């Protein structure tokens, strides 16, 4: 975490530590203010901001404060605290409610935020996907994060990072769903026919140099089917829908940052081939009939693989093979 958020959080979390130490009882405001050398008003202010972060803190007159459960606590401190990475997540910006984590990360990157800075939000009011489509982002249930990378690669190699991200997401989710995860070109993660994770990347580049890439990743974790808008129900799923179990978002996100970093380092050291190989193992489209919707046109044919840059090849009925770098792939995945 950074800046004022960090300093305020450090004080806040000392309160959490005190409450956790006496998890079976109440701690009075006076005791906390003594232990931390702050006024009782300051304690109350911190309690208020902790509640905003999602901590369920009960306050009883004459008894004090009590932490109710420790369930899936999700904030910057919980993430930065236990993160075993060198680059990704070394600077964590947490928002209880963000407009769009990608927009925030883009702005931070423009202002010079270092590689590995991450933005994470409990919920988004303006979560978005490709071509400004809405990404459902209710608070309290899912992962919404954007990662700033500054790779020394030419801009034309940057799209490979989006496929790399989908491979990293798949790897993390595979511990829960070992047999039913697939990748849809270029970077959707599916369970059966339904989308569990979406990735939208944005780049700022000069003609020959990447200034930064923002990897925006949304994962449906604990959202239940009924919480999706009805039109999305046939198309979207979540971890809890597939496994029946609530997962810790904090643990999942830390695993995701770790996995992303591992693949990113491998990509910088060994190129795209390891990513491509892994992608192909889970890529669904080979030999399938597909329709690729682009602006105003649709290309129909048989998917015949991806090339060394990750572009999709579609063989059309005329025998002509079209190389596709952008578009919506619609396929019969049955």
């Amino acid at each position: 975490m950074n800046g004022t958020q960090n300093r305020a959080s450090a004080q806040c979390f000392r309160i959490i530590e005190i409450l956790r130490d006496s998890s079976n009882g109440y701690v009075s405001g006076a005791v906390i203010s003594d232990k931390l050398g702050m006024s009782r008003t300051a304690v109350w202010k911190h309690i208020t901001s902790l509640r905003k972060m999602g901590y369920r803190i009960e306050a009883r007159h004459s008894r004090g404060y009590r932490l109710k459960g420790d369930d899936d606590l999700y904030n910057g401190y919980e993430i930065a605290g236990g993160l075993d990475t060198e680059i990704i997540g070394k600077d964590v910006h947490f928002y209880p409610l963000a407009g769009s984590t990608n927009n925030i990360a883009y702005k931070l990157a423009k202002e010079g935020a270092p590689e590995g800075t991450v933005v994470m939000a409990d919920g988004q009011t303006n979560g978005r996907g490709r071509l400004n489509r809405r990404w459902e982002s209710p608070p309290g249930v899912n992962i919404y994060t954007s990662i700033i990378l500054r790779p020394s690669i030419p801009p034309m190699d940057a799209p490979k990072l989006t496929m790399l991200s989908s491979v990293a997401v798949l790897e993390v989710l595979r511990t829960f769903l070992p047999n039913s995860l697939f990748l849809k070109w270029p970077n959707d993660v599916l369970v059966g026919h339904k989308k569990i994770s979406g990735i939208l990347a944005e780049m700022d580049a000069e003609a020959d140099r990447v200034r930064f890439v923002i990897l925006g990743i949304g994962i449906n974790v604990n959202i239940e089917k009924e919480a999706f808008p009805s039109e999305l129900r046939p198309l979207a799923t979540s971890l809890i829908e597939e496994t029946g179990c609530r997962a810790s978002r904090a643990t999942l996100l830390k695993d995701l940052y770790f996995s992303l970093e591992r693949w990113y380092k491998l990509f910088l050291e060994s190129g795209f081939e390891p990513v491509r190989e892994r992608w192909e193992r889970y890529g669904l489209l080979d030999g399938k009939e597909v329709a690729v919707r682009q602006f105003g046109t649709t290309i129909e044919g048989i998917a015949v693989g991806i090339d060394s840059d990750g572009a999709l090849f579609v063989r059309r009925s005329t025998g002509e093979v079209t190389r596709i770098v952008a578009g919506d792939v619609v396929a019969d995945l049955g």
Partner: protein
Amino acid sequence: MSLKEIKELYRFLKNTDIVEFELEQPDLKVRLKRGVPQRPDVDVVQSGVRQVTSPGVEKEKVETKKNLHTVVSPMVGTFYRAPSPEAQPFVEMGSVVEKGQVLCIIEAMKLMNEVESEYGGKIVSILVDNGQPVEYGEPLFLLEP
């Protein structure tokens, strides 16, 4: 009319006996005239601005570079003039843009690249249609400083 179309017109006329050709549209006037040396003059007036005057295609390219800034695609992808299908284009013909202003988006594999203008100036030509594929280094816009 794009520079590409003008070039096509030029190539077409070169193979005919036509000595002089004039086309007038509300915001554009093109006059192609073949002079005494075998090569024709290309005289383009666009939005009231004298854009290119040169005796041949080769020199025309050089002069284009000298007079106008060319914004090229930094990667292979799909060219979008607006952030979403419903939204207004980032720029139109004749838009005056500042350095750093977003001109378009190039998408490849769900990586969206907002292409910013490296110069301030006026958009005098938009060379690619919305939603079309573009190659690395392909000219997208011509800017008059």
